[in-house]
């Protein structure tokens, strides 16, 4: 009764595969930077209007301690805000899932949380909580909460009905059905929500700093814009992008570790 194994090789990327997936974007970015550099120099555009990449690179190196110190402040707001969004989003999803009444009561509020205009809310938070970390954390948490809550609710509802019926036939209690099937079945959706949330949390934190802060990359950018330090602004934007990519990658990495079975399912397109 030996049967062939459905391909589980190629789950681990080879060095060649790594080059193949990273070379195109790297080349594209490199070419774009080169065109930018040449165009700025040839046209004689003033540095305050559009600095060449070399000037931005110089700003990154020369102002590195300033940039990194402020990046650390922004990163703190992102991480704390994301943690808050995750906790609140999961809690809201569990409550919505727990009873139809709570569903009717809470779901509109979850949607409403997304329709609140952040530009209107951020100054209010400033009035209430001052210029410290808290108002940034709250803005960040507010934008990250929605994708996590909505995805988790969908994930909990997506559990296969026939599988649940089988578990009942085995004599599983509601708690066992939740622990053994519904929760694990929801995890991929939770992670989808978390990946979206971590990206918008970076935007949320910077916006919070725009409105009023004493430190952070958003604060640094508003100062630099006022002084036409365009190279520093672009350097800060570059750092923010890196931060976003890094955080997104970190969430994806945790997902891989927590859900090792996913790569086989995605690969074979089987099941679910």
């Amino acid at each position, binding site marked *: *009764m030996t*049967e*062939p*194994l*459905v391909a*589980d090789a190629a789950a681990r990327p080879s060095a060649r595969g790594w080059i193949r997936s990273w070379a195109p974007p790297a080349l594209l970015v490199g070419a774009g930077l080169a065109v930018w550099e040449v165009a700025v120099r040839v046209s004689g555009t003033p540095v305050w209007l559009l600095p060449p990449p070399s000037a931005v690179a110089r700003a990154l190196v020369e102002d590195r301690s300033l940039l990194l110190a402020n990046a650390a402040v922004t990163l703190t707001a992102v991480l704390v805000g994301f943690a808050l969004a995750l906790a609140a989003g999961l809690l809201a999803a569990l409550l919505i899932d727990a009873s139809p009444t709570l569903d009717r009561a809470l779901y509109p509020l979850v949607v409403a949380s997304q329709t609140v205009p952040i530009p209107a809310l951020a100054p209010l938070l400033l009035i209430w909580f001052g210029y410290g970390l808290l108002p940034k954390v709250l803005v960040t948490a507010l934008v990250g909460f929605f994708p996590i809550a909505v995805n988790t609710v969908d994930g909990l509802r997506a559990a*296969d009905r*026939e*599988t649940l*019926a*089988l*578990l*009942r*036939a*085995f*004599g*599983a209690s509601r708690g*066992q059905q939740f622990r*053994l*099937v519904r929760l*694990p*079945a929801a*995890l991929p959706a939770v992670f989808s929500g978390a990946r979206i949330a971590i990206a918008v949390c970076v935007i949320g934190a910077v916006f919070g700093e725009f409105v009023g802060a004493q430190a952070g990359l958003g604060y640094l950018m508003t100062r630099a814009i006022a002084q036409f330090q365009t190279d520093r602004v672009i350097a800060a934007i570059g750092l923010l992008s890196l931060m976003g990519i890094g955080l997104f990658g970190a969430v994806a990495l945790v997902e891989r570790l927590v*859900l*090792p*079975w996913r790569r*086989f*399912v995605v*690969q*074979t397109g*089987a*099941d*679910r």
Partner: protein
Amino acid sequence: MRAAAIGDAGATSAAPRLELRGVTSTYREGRARLTALSDLSLAVADREFVALVGRSGSGKSTLLDIAAGLIEPDAGAVLLDGVRLPASARLGRSAYLRQRDLLLPWRTVVGNAGLALEIAGLPRQEAEARARARLGEFGLEGRGDAFPAQLSGGMRQRVAFLRTILAGHPRLLLDEPFAALDALTRTELHDWLLALWEREGQAVLLVTHDVEEAVMLADRAVVLSAAPGQVAHVEEIDLRRPRRRSLVTDPAFVRHKAALLDALGLLDREDRA
């Protein structure tokens, strides 16, 4: 004819493992109320293999759901080991296997196979150890830590069988467990299931579309008529065990098969003996 379906064997010895008495079951479809099963009686004794044959829509799966305790019939009684039990008390008393293997994609082979034991209260490690000890017997040697998506359809269904058997219930409810498999894998699993059942001797109720499968495996084949499901015919299959593949050309095998096809209305008048 109805009386034969109740199984007189059960009356003389111990009570049947599973008995349905005058079961009627309806379901709602839109505004209409449709009857899936009508006044149906059926019994499966210990160490008996009964096949339930019928066209789509004859309520075969509903019957298994009722036996398993997932549905309470509108009328009639369900008895396990001679005791009449409500649906909630029937849950967790029978091993149930469906056409879809319903393996949890996030659990390994042993994690899936031990699931019913875990639900019954065994610690996960203990359940997985018991599953691992029987992998070889189910043709899953060395695959204990694989995920379902890494396995072929035949292997997946054997994992589902292992999960079902490990629960240790004296009743097996099998809802077309071979229907999704290719013909060769199906044949292989037939032989394997017979060997397993001859060792363990559960009371088996197998739902199938496949007349040949019913004759090959069962002691008795019950034909259900469609909408509403009622017992249309009972065929006692007294072919000697252990059954071998070569039986398919045996005149007695062919006769049973023809009788079942006839009961299903699949034989033309000229074809009838």
